[in-house]
Every structure is written in structure tokens, then in C-alpha cells.
């Protein structure tokens, strides 16, 4: 039995991670948990990039892309946490559904 992982395995895992992240982002009420969903989605794409880079003809481009994505994600989360905190200071809750002033 051959247990060496192939490209297809990585793509499946990555697609599952993407779906989980999407689900988390949509269903979680807590803003910090929604952020985790975002991270999961970005990292599933990262896994894809690195897997393509390893198995495909892509050379090292994908790994470089992955590094940039990690840095960008860190910056994104830093800003997002600041926003969550600012809203928390006013609302005393990290829940996204509390953000209901704007509608119509």
C-alpha cells in the first residue's frame, strides 16, 4: 500500500480547510473567531500554493507567494484586532451581530 501523499491529497485538505474557514467566518458570532476563519481560508490557499510548487512545474514561485501571504495575513489581523477592540470599547461585546447600528 502506498501512503505517499500526492498532489490530490493536498488539494483535498486545502479545499476542506477553505470550506471550514468559510463556514467559521459565516457562522461565528465572535469577531475573533471569525478572524480565525479568515486565517484558515488564507492558509488553505497557502497550502495549495506550496503543494503546487512541490508537485507541479511551478518552481519556487508558490513558496515565495506563501511567504508574502503569511506577512500580509499578519498585517491584516493586526488591523482587524484593533478594529474589534475599538468596537469592544464602545459595545462591551466582541459579537458581530451587536454591530447593528447601520441598516436600512
Amino acid at each position, binding site marked *: 500500500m502506498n501512503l505517499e501523499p500526492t498532489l490530490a491529497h493536498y488539494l483535498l485538505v486545502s479545499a476542506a480547510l477553505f470550506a471550514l474557514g468559510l463556514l467559521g467566518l459565516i457562522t461565528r458570532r465572535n469577531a475573533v473567531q*471569525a478572524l480565525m476563519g479568515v486565517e484558515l481560508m488564507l492558509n488553505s490557499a497557502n497550502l495549495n500554493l506550496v503543494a*503546487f510548487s512541490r508537485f507541479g512545474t511551478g518552481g519556487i*514561485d508558490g513558496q515565495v507567494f506563501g511567504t508574502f501571504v503569511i506577512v500580509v495575513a499578519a498585517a491584516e489581523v493586526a*488591523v482587524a484586532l484593533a478594529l474589534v477592540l475599538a468596537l469592544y470599547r464602545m459595545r462591551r461585546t466582541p459579537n458581530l451581530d451587536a454591530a447593528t*447600528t*447601520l441598516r436600512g
Partner: protein
Amino acid sequence: MPAVDLRPLLPALIVAVTALVVLLAQAFTPKGSRSPSMGLTVTGLAGALLLSLTMASDGRYGRGANTGGSVVADDFTLFFHVLLIGLALMAALLSPAYYRENGGDRGEYYSLMMFSLVGMLGLVSATEMISMFVALEIMSVALYALCGTRRDQVESQEAALKYFVTGAFASAFLLFGMALLYGLSGSTSLARVARGVATATPEQIPLAVLGCGLLIVGFGFKVASVPFHMWTPDVYEGAPTTVTALMAAGVKAASFGAFLRVFLGSLPTLREEWVPALAALAAITMVIGNLGALAQSNLKRMLAFSSVAHAGYLMTGMVGTTEASAQAILFYLVAYGAVNMGTFGLIASLSKGGREPLSLQDVAGLGARRPAIAASLTVFLISLTGIPISGGFVGKFYLFGAAVNAGYTGLAIIGVLMSVVSAYYYLRVVVAMYMREPEGEDVWSTPEAPGRLAALIAVAVTLGLGIWPAPVLDLARAAALSLL
């Protein structure tokens, strides 16, 4: 390897350095004295604009200088650079008065605005997916923070968070799509992706189509097309008005720039797959955007739905996939950018003590009290509707023409019908300004000189494009040709 010429990157570098200088100037200005943020910002942006203009008129960069492979400085890039820096300059002129009335005039605001501009400049010039993604994120992350710059106002914070959640969503989709296209072609360069897609084997086609679809979702969020538009009204309403102006004008232009470069420039071989999808999206975007705007009583929300509707008109132009359609989109982005900057700018410069004129009662009687402002607003609303002698009319004429030439006559008819519907909610504002009796005192500010200058530029551009569109049409054509 031919000599790398990095001069085309200079405008973006100037903007980035100015942003850093403004940031540090703010931090190192002693408490109590005013920091020179606004002056520095305007100087830096004007310098960058001048440099872009010189490069645009210098034929050498027309077909793209060698800048090392990640970005290109062709006519398309330079067209957008001049447009985007110009829009940011107008937003900077409008900002000081607005922030004085509403609190929070700080150097960080200007530097975030310029960082966002750096992202936009990179986004339209990127010819490679890593640069494109990083530029998109620089633009977006700075904007998330900008939306929340009114720290004491819960609407502003809420808008920032909502914009972040939907924006991050869009980025993730875009990134996943890019990863698939990379897997297919083995390169992150858009030219190699184009080749990879063109020579894809039958088993690879689903991968390409899936990647394409994810990119449409990502760009759909950024340009605010239905069904990815839910964030638009809330964010446009909650964000500080000058930021909304930059978002409506600049972000839409930059996102469409990247949208065009990826789809028209690199994925024309998949035309059969994405054109019908885009046509369907354009149709529902126009219908839902315009019907949504009908129901709004708040001016900022109404303009947000109008922004959704305009994403639909612009996508209608895209189904043509020829240089004529790219030309129409570029022209319309100029007209639309000037009009939005003008409209939101006037709302911002009228604001007083934390309040803005946002309802029909607020603008009632403006024609008698503030004839110049009412006249300018009328020009903008006429252009948004698409009535002749305004840039909006010429733009829509070319957009729908491109759709008809591509065989999508039905789409053009929907566009025209929806424009007629839109006349109701745009002209309602004009009627209120001129026909209704004002209620109560005139409580609004008088726009200051920089704000008046920005509004004047917007009016001049809007009327200029309507009366004598040829020069900009020629520039847009050259830009479109360098793309395809």
C-alpha cells in the same frame, strides 16, 4: 537581461515616502502645535501627479518599460496612475475641513490614505499575481483602518469591521483562485498564466474555470457587484465621508483596473466561460442596485446603491472583451470618479458639528440658499443619471455600445431601462434642492477654499467629458490597446 528601468515606480515611491514622512511628522510634532500633514500630503501627491503626467506624455513608456517583471508601466498603468493620484489629491483637499467639523484631524489619516493609494497604484500596474495580491491588501488594509478613523463614532467602527470581514472574505477567494491558476500554469506571472490557460489540456480546463470563478467572486466583492454587494450601503454610510469618496471613486477604479488586466488581458481564451457569467452578474447588479437605491432616504446609502448599480454598468461594458469595451470602461471610470469625489466631497464640506446633509429635508431649498453648491450637485446627479452634456452620458453610450457590439443587446436594454429608473432617485434630490421650501435655519458650513477647488475640478471634469470627450477617449483607447 536588458537594463531595468525603475523610474516608472517613482510616483508610487514618492507617495509611500510622503506617507511615511507625514506619519513621523505627526508623531514628532509637539503637542499643541499643528502638524503639517495636509501641506505635506498635497505637496507629495502633486509631485507624484506631475511625474505621472510627464511619464504619460513621454511616449517611451507606452508599451511598457522593463521594470523587473512584477509591474509594468504601460499606457494602461499610466492612465490609472494619473486618475488615482488625482482622485486622492481631491480627497486630501476635502479632508481638513471635514475632520475639523467631525473630529479626528490627524496626520495618520493622511498617511493611511496615501498608503491605500500606493496599494491602488500597485494594483493597476501589477502583471504578476504576488504583486497584485500584496498591492490589493495594502489598499484594503489601509482602508479598513481609514473607515474607523472617527474613533468616537460607533457607526464608523462598525463600518470598519464590516468592511474588514467582507474584504478579508474577498481576499481569500481571490487568493485561492490565484493559487489554482498558479497550479495550472506553473507561474505567478500573468503572461505565463495566459499561456498556461491557452494550452490547457481538457482535464485542466475545470481547474482553470474554477480559478476564474473564484477570481470573479473576489473582484465582485471589491467592485461591489451583486450578490457580493451587501457590505456597500453600511460601509459607505458609516465611513467618514471623505473616505467614502475615496472608496467609491478610487477603489472602484483600481479594482476594475486589475479586473480588466486579469480577465481581458490574461484570460481571453476562457472568454466562453466567463463572459456569460459576467453578463448575468451585470444584469442583476444593475437591477438590484437601482431598485435598492429607490428605497433609500439617506443620501450616502442612496449613493452606495448607485455605486452598486454603476458596477453593473461597468461590467456590462466588460462583456465585449474588445479594446472598445476596455476604452469605454476606462472613460467611464474617469467620469464616475470625478462625479463621486464631487458629490461626497460637497456633502463632506457642508457638514457642520458632526452632522451632514443626508436627507431630502436637509438639501431642500439649497438652490436658493447656496446656488453654486446646488448647481454643482445638479451637474453630478445629471452625470450619474446619464443625461447628455455630462461625462456620464458619453460613458454610458460607449459602455452600452460595447455590449451591443458583443451581441448582448438585451443587457444594454436593461442598462438603459435601469438608467431611466435611476433618474427618479437622482432627480428627486435636484427637485428637493430647487422646488422645495427650506425648513428651519441654514445650519451648514460654507466650503473652504481647498474643498471648493476640489469641487470645481470635479465639475470641470464632468462637463468637460460631456462636451469634449475626444482627448480622454483617445487616452483611454491607447491605454486599452496596451492592455490587449
